[in-house]
């Protein structure tokens, strides 16, 4: 699942992941992610700046809930400086925008394998 408030990025990443054979869902709204009750994704790509929401708060919340704490989260941000705070919020990995597709795919593969 992809959570990013920029439709362009969501669309492009969706195409890539689809092309690579993943089933993808997406949202541009931070609240949608926290409202999930069932059908949790295998992995979450989460932007740090979501309009109205701080991705790190969402990450922290998901990692606290019993139902969702097992979902691996890759945080994405245009700012390299907040990499550390992403990890502190419980993110499993971090990717700086703009990224290389190979880096994204490698990280996804690695985390899915671990789980």
């Amino acid at each position, binding site marked *: 699942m992809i959570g990013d408030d920029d439709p*362009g990025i969501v669309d*492009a990443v969706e195409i890539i992941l689809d092309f690579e054979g993943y089933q993808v869902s997406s949202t541009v709204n931070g609240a949608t992610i926290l409202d999930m009750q069932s059908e949790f994704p295998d992995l979450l790509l989460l932007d740090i700046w979501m309009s109205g929401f701080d991705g790190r708060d969402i990450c922290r919340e998901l990692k606290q809930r019993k139902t969702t704490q097992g979902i691996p989260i890759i945080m994405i941000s245009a700012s390299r400086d907040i990499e550390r705070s992403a990890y502190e919020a419980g993110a499993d990995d971090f990717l700086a925008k*703009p990224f290389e597709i190979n880096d994204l795919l490698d990280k996804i593969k690695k985390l899915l394998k671990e789980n």
Partner: protein
Amino acid sequence: MHWIQSEGRVYYDASNRPIRMLGAIVDITRQKNAEEELKRFKFMADNASDIFILMCESSSLAYLNKEALEQWGYNEEESLNLKMRDIDVLYNKKAFDDTFALAQKQTIPPFETVYKRKDGSAYPVEINMAGLVLAEKPYLFAVVRDITESKRALEEQAKTNQRLEIALEAGRLGSYELELATGLMSCTPQCKANYGVASNESFNFADLLAVILPTYRDYVQERVEKAINEHSVYSAEYQVKWPDGSVHWINASGKASYDENDKAVLIVGVTIDVTDQKLLQQQKDEFIGIASHELKTPVTSIKAYAQVLERILAKKGDTQEAAMISKMDAQLNRLTSLIADLLDVTKINSGRLQFNYTSFDFNQLIAEVVEDLQRTTQKHTLMEDMQETGQVYADKERISQVLVNLITNAIKYSPHTKNIIIHTRLVNDEVMVSVEDFGIGISKEKHKRYLSNFTV
């Protein structure tokens, strides 16, 4: 030893023989001493380069030294008939009598008046007076100093000060003098205004430290001490809190002056409220920061589209098209790094550049960078001349950026030569890196601009 004056008369008898002498003997030591005194005084006075005059109680001049005769244009004979009203343009009898009487009892503080010469020309003088008794007569002794030059210098200085004041005011510069031993400050009204203090309030070093925001206090004191120790110009930028609670940026500078023991006694300098400039600079930095951050978002999606397109084309076997998309992706990487550089400059300017320190092998990092950059050029051979450097604790990413900049510059500016050598050495526990090319080099005039922004 005494001087005796003896007078007598001889008496004779009828046959004209002296029979006795009647006389008087007077001790004249005092008169003799007075004459000596007067002689000594005249000798001294005639050899002096200042004008010395002696006035009688009647205000006539008892004596003028040679210098006075020469400067005023009188001969000795004429001088005997001179009265003070002929000399002092501002003469008035009562004032003279009062001064004369007073001078016999106490010292008269120096004062200024105007004297005139024989030809009628007048000039400003400073008079030092003292009561004097010579040969038991009271006199007024005066040393007369021509102050035309010093008056002119004073006027000139006043003019200069006025010009300085206008300049200070136009530049909204406040000027101050700080006495180091006491911490007392004398400030111009503008200087006080820069700290939100009214011109009639006192403002000393302790008051200054109190209004400086706590985070800057040590910094300011350190800067001042450093300038004093190094005999250099002190300069600092700090924030102050005005009595009304508003926070302002101050740019202050100054220079110390020293006594004969090389002890700093005084700091003289200027201050200026730079809040507006700071605010603009901050807005500029913020704008660049936000703009470059915003630019990243579309670049990210363009890049993602390009990469997925490349894959699709490659899968279809359209290799030529895929290669073009790949070139486009490389250009996008250039765009990305330009945006990142722009953002870095802003961060450096605002002191917000963060470093992620790790330990890594320096030579290994160089090897990686060299390997990457060798791929970008066929004309050049990047050669390594490296000594064991061991581990360094630094921001690997940033150091790599610096190395890339140096080496790509070397490549760019040596188009007709082949070799570029990267040297590393361990010098006093520090790693020294040099990138040597055999190209056009950098002209001497540009050497001092190396470390400024946007210098290639």
